[in-house]
């Protein structure tokens, strides 16, 4: 593959994906070599406190799944880097959620031991509907539908950045190609896009779906 194409991951992804489907023997190696650093780098920025080994393992899983079933990826809906990032992110979030649940269960059992069983009033621990934490941390099937819900690649990139906990307006401004606007204008436009995306996702993900998967 030429240098020019390698420098354009979106085009390279489309070409390499087709080669993988065609049974090209070096395609998996070329895909791994080009996309592992990109995906690991993006995820590491999103999870700065997470063990790098976990991130690398999640990316390895994403690639192995992709190599095993390349036909599940639709390049018309999402670029290959985004697809792999989404897949690895889903694994990471599931892993973090499992760990969180285990920690909660542990602290709850420690807490319950202090009290008798005949409590008269129970308190239901339910926070407000926090879309980012609920949807982004609990509901992995949504990632399979993401491309249908948000067909615009810019919207998909924004969701991926939100999933990764990106807070910098300038990063979103780059994606939206509004970096030339004044900072206040950038912040306003970014917020408008994020709110619109959240509304779209919220409309399409019911609470029951979230709790079933949570």
């Amino acid at each position, binding site marked *: 593959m030429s240098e020019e194409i390698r420098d354009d991951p979106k085009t390279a992804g489309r070409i390499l994906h087709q080669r993988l489907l065609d049974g090209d023997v070096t395609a998996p190696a070329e895909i*791994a070599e080009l996309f592992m650093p990109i995906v690991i780098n993006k995820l590491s920025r999103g999870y700065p406190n997470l063990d790098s080994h976990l991130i690398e393992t999640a990316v390895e899983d994403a690639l192995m799944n992709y190599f095993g079933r390349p036909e599940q990826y639709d390049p018309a809906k999402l670029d290959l880097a985004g697809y792999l990032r989404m897949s690895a992110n889903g694994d990471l979030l599931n892993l973090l959620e499992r760990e969180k649940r285990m920690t909660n269960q542990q602290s709850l059992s420690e807490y319950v031991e202090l009290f008798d069983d005949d409590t008269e009033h129970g308190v239901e621990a339910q926070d407000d509907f926090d879309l980012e934490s609920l949807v982004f941390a609990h509901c992995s099937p949504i990632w399979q539908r993401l491309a249908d819900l948000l067909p615009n690649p810019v919207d998909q990139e924004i969701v991926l950045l939100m999933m990764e906990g990106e807070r910098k307006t300038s990063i979103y401004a780059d994606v939206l190609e509004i970096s030339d606007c004044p900072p206040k204008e950038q912040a306003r436009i970014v917020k408008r896009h994020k709110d619109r995306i959240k509304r779209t996702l919220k409309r399409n993900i019911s609470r029951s779906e979230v709790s079933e998967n949570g």
Partner: protein
Amino acid sequence: MGEMTVSAKVGKYLAGLARRLKDNPGFMAYVLSVYQTQERLDDTALAEHLGTTVNLLSRLALCKRPSTESARFADQVKQIAAYISTDPAVVANVIRQVGSLEALARRPVALDPDRQATRQSHTEAGLLAAARDRSEADSDQSPPSEQESSRED
């Protein structure tokens, strides 16, 4: 075609993925792992045997395994060899040797359970010797060794 070097960081990522694919017979990672075990080669020795570098071994490991039964076998081997800048004949021999061992290992060994246990203990060394003979004999000929062994069955 990629460059003939891989940065240390990317090399580490590729090596990690290659390790995960060692159990997948569809990848060269599996072929290299079996070959290394049977020939008792570490990565450096394997790289030397293949005429490449340890760094490029991961690239090779992440390639799909060409099927010796495919009409595209020679072309696929050439493509892989060019990708890691090595001699296609050496790559082909490694693939054929591992394929021969797999084919021989699939043969029914013995009906008598006692004899079977005894023969299994000799299987690895015997198969390796047989495969070596076959690889050498096959190196300039095309008939895939798996087909030979299935005819023998």
